[in-house]
């Protein structure tokens, strides 16, 4: 049963990837929709970023002084000025570790 659900979930996921690329003719989208699509990265990724920072494993909001908030702020600044993905990720992680391992212990 679990195997069957995985296969169905896989087919469903594949369809989410394939539908707009292979089945929908681009001409069917109006100019208005095409210009709105320019914003897709900015409109989608914060839905992954915000809950991962502000909501804990138990589904409730974190405290305002949570190390993840601090780490994220550092990452935004470093990323903005360095334009470097590795620097962004590492600066966020290191400042987060600094808070949980050095400050709070």
């Amino acid at each position, binding site marked *: 049963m679990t195997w069957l659900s995985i296969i169905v979930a896989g087919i*469903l996921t594949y369809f989410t990837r394939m539908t707009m690329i292979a089945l929908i003719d681009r001409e069917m989208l109006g100019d208005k929709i095409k210009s709105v699509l320019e914003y897709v990265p900015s409109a989608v990724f914060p839905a992954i970023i*915000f809950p991962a920072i502000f909501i804990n494993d138990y589904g409730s909001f974190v405290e305002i002084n949570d190390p993840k908030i601090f780490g994220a702020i550092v990452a935004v600044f470093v990323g903005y000025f360095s334009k470097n993905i590795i620097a962004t990720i590492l600066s966020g992680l290191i400042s987060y570790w600094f808070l949980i391992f050095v400050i709070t212990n």
Partner: protein
Amino acid sequence: MLSKKQLFIKGMIDISPHMLSVIPFGIICGAIGVELGFNPYLVYAMSFIIFGGASQIVFLQLLSGGASSLVAVTSVGIINSRHLLYGAVLSEYLEKLSFIKKLLISYFVVDQGFAESNKFFKKNKNEQNLHYHLIGTGCTMWVFWQISTLSGIILGSFVPEELGLKFAIPLTFIAIVVQDLKKMDHVIIMITCGLSSLLFFDAPFKSYIIISPVIALFVASLILRLKK
């Protein structure tokens, strides 16, 4: 004009920094699946059949928590429905490909690959064979995802949980959108999406992940109307 091989390699290079977050996340995903008591072959098969990071964990967590398969499958479908938006954006650059090639390339569309290839496409609209860049980002993600989930399954959670490496995931996406903070319209749209995701976090089937982009894109259409 870049050759197909050069485009493919450029794609691999552009996505590689994200492996810093993909590898630990893959290990965690694999390890969690086994810890929840699932057959290791089944846990690995998901990386191959679904190939969709967070949705794989959610699927197993729901099933082990006693949810029905219908609920678990629906949740995977809803979480991954954001790919429809990626596909709509990418279709501009993949239009000329044959139907078969479109079907094959679709399997490799993932968050970070879409983000990096889309950035490259926007800057290089005149290049031929742009899709090789997308194949480069997608294949790199695929290989690292298979290896990292497999290592998590075999070796267990050898990454100490105290390190909180799950936190690398939001950081990877911060790195993707951070340069757009220069533009006011993008800032408004990001904040709209982020706040909506917190507001709708408890909506059924993890649907916040598609509800908030839809709200944000609606705001984007209003902004475009105001700009004119």
